[in-house]
């Protein structure tokens, strides 16, 4: 038996009947997708962001606190766009059958890593020297910079490899049948794909491993970033759960990113019939549990500090929660925990398409403010000594900060749209496999679906 579904919304997507019709339909959509407009707009935003970036760079690296918004933006992209592919990994590993129409939308977000790799570069200069502060690296000068950079490169490379491997069969189809898009590039990328059983086997193994590596790299990057740019900068902050909180909140925001992306696919991308309730309702359930986990991990850290109440601990709470960044913290708390749980707990909201999209938007905003209070707060205080001696007032955003934030949003969207022109944005092979493995039939008087589960 199944959880009750609402009868007014059709839970399952309506796909063309045969694999051939599906290919024709999807490649037709791929060939004539009208994304030039958004591409131009996001490109302009990216340029605007570049201006902001140059302005910020002109100010130099002497003052760390002015880089707070920039760092928060970088981590925000890491936590949202770069975390979105995890849903593709996780649903594949758990064989969630509702994943099929949405999996490529998630995988395409790996390209956002290219922009974030560039955003990381100036931040490397902001890691303070190792003398006189706590660090993992003992006296190995330059280690944090090298490791963070290598970690990021690894993450991005792994992500792009993941996307490419998983899209290979579709690139083959696009090479053969698509009429639009950069056909030369597609042909070059799909060069040797012929779809032999051997190739399929390699491809499947490849996406499993690359997916798991991507997840592990992402968790590792969250560890590095949260340690190097937050914990070590605030004296007395000994918070082992913090990297885990950072990673969990990122998975939550990644889920929100993918739900929002699917909403846009459905509203503007012309994929309405491919994305039905199942593709919103199932992620919404996950989003709700991740919102609860957000609170749980935050609370695990908080209650120990609140009970401990040593000067070092109250100093940390001042710097990143109750001090100058209290307002962003409260916004983040409401948008990442109170609102998503409070809304998604209601069946009519969770079991809908608009509800989860709306909640995702809230979560994405909340995640930015949450990152802001962490990195804004950590960049404010002196990293040396045993405890936070003094928390200066918050650094207010300047024009450059706004430009950078908008530019980052424009930049990741720009990259995503570019990738949409190369990789078919709905996975053909996953859907065709679904068609082969799924049969509708009746069991006495009930209509049921038979889902094949080959090992």
């Amino acid at each position, binding site marked *: *038996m199944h959880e009750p579904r609402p009868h007014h919304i059709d839970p399952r997507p309506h796909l063309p009947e045969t694999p051939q019709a599906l290919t024709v339909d999807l490649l037709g959509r791929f060939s004539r997708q009208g994304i030039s407009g958004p591409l131009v707009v996001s490109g302009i935003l990216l340029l605007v962001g570049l201006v902001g970036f140059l302005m910020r760079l002109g100010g130099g690296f002497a003052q760390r606190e002015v880089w707070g918004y920039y760092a928060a933006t970088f981590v925000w992209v890491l936590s949202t766009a770069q975390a979105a592919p995890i849903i593709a990994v996780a649903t594949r590993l758990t064989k969630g059958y509702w994943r099929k129409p949405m999996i490529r939308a998630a995988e395409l977000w790996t390209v956002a890593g290219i922009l974030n790799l560039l955003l990381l570069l100036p931040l490397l200069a902001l890691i303070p020297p190792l003398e006189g502060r706590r660090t993992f690296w003992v006296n190995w000068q330059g280690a944090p910079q090298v490791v963070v950079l290598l970690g990021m490169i690894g993450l991005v490379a792994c992500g792009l490899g993941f996307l490419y491997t998983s899209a290979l069969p579709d690139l083959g189809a696009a090479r053969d049948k698509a009429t639009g898009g950069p056909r030369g590039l597609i042909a070059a990328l799909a060069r040797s794909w012929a779809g032999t059983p051997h190739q399929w086997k390699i491809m499947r193994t490849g996406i499993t491993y690359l997916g798991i590596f991507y997840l592990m790299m992402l968790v590792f990057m969250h560890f590095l970033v949260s340690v190097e740019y937050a914990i070590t900068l605030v004296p007395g902050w000994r918070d082992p759960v913090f990297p885990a909180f950072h990673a969990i909140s990122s998975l939550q925001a990644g889920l929100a990113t993918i739900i929002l992306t699917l909403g846009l696919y459905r509203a503007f991308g012309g994929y309405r019939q491919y994305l039905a309730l199942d593709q919103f309702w199932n992620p919404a359930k996950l989003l709700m549990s991740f919102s609860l986990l957000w609170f749980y991990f935050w609370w*695990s850290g908080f209650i120990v500090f609140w009970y401990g109440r040593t000067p070092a601990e109250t100093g940390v709470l001042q710097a990143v929660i109750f001090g100058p960044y209290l307002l962003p913290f409260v916004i983040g708390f409401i948008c990442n925990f109170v609102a998503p749980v409070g809304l998604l707990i209601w069946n009519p909201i969770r079991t809908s398409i608009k509800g989860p999209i709306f909640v995702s938007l809230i979560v994405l905003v909340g995640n930015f403010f949450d990152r802001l209070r962490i990195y804004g707060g950590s960049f404010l205080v002196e990293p040396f000594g045993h405890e936070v001696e003094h928390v200066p007032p918050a650094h207010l955003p300047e024009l450059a900060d706004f430009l950078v934030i908008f530019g980052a949003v424009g930049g990741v969207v720009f990259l995503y749209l570019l990738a949409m022109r190369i990789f078919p944005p709905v996975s053909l092979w996953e859907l065709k496999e679904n068609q082969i493995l799924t049969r509708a039939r009746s069991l006495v008087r009930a209509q049921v679906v038979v*889902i094949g589960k080959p090992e």
Partner: protein
Amino acid sequence: MQERRVLNEAQINQGLLGFVLKTPGWFWVAALVLATVVAGMLTSIVVMIVFGLGPTGLNRPVFWGFMIVNFVFWVGISHAGVMISSILRLCQAEWRRPVTRAAEVLTVFSLATAASFPLIHMGRMWRFYWVFPFDFDRMIWPNVRSPLIWDPSAIFTYLTGASLFVYMALLPDLGILRDRTTGWRHTFYSILSLGWRGNPRQFKLQFLLGVLLSGLILPVFVSVHSIVSWDFAVSLVPAWHATVFAPYFVIGAVHSGVSAVVTMMAILRWAFKWEDFIRPEHFDALGRLLIAVATTWLYFFMLDVWFGIFGGESRELSVMEQRIFEWPWGLMFLIILTLGYIVPVSAWLFRAVRRNIGLMFVLSILVNVSMWMERLWLIVPGLQNKERLPFNWNLYIPSALEIMLVIGSFTLVMLGLLIFSKLFPLIPVWEQKEGQLLREEIQIGRRRVPAIIRE
């Protein structure tokens, strides 16, 4: 994956209820042996009632020893049940069917055993009811700011919830038993089955019960072990005062608990000859789940160790030094890492190992040996005070009494499970039948692919 015979409902009844309806000779031998050891445990408790905590190895400053370690360990085991049955129910994983009830019953008995240990440890255990707000005359209430009050509230909630869950999910099977028994047993099952008849409405609500209670018990299950961890973490004892404790304890609990379920499933398969119901594919699935769980556990374990060193506080460092380099803790550290992660996970990576029930049985026991040791390793070294004034240092050597209590706790849980399995089927009969009903095969080319029916 054609490993299973197709059985009709009568055969399923016979296979699963055989032990309930007929008593083999070994039952009495096993019950007698277990009861003898439990009697030894009860004797130890009587000794403690008469002499107090004196006969134990507890001393100043090591006030918490084997009994608390054992408490944490059994609370951990109790997490398996609900974690497995709830998560698998919510994900509608087909392979949950033979696992759920056994896991839930393990929860109930291990939690009850765990709960008895703080009572034994109290010294004057007949005053345990002081944790409740009962004293209206003198108006002396429990101190809600103390985690020692949170503990009973959490365990009471969890024990109540888990027991009710087991009972409610038993209703259809009690109906089956009522129809298959005569005499006093018929009366017994008739009363317990509440007049269950098995109409569509009752089954629908039974399903909703599974969903709702799973959803409600999951957050409780997380809170229980978190609260147990806060018994330690909200104090200022070095190595205990770590923010990661709550999720770290929870995931450690899941690690040991799922392993315990593997142990139990193997024993059930052997003892009750349930080859048709508990099959290698179930061990395969549990093994894969364990890889993920163990890796997450390792992540939190490393976070705890890293940040212990990272803080650079001398109190923390002294405990860490002791835990990693000094006898016997250093050896335990190695054993925890080797038996808790390296050996089992590298073995579980191989499908042949995951499907080898004997090997899975051995590995699951190794995991629990290491997890018991991990609890000891976490709890005792922090108390030995090997840093400040030397006259405060002390070692902890458990007395024979405490060892008897620990051994007794294992037999107590086993005896509970044995008696339960004599009275009720440990595999849900009706769920097994449903699984059989929803199982199909679809023909794709030359291959027959196993499939399941979904509404």
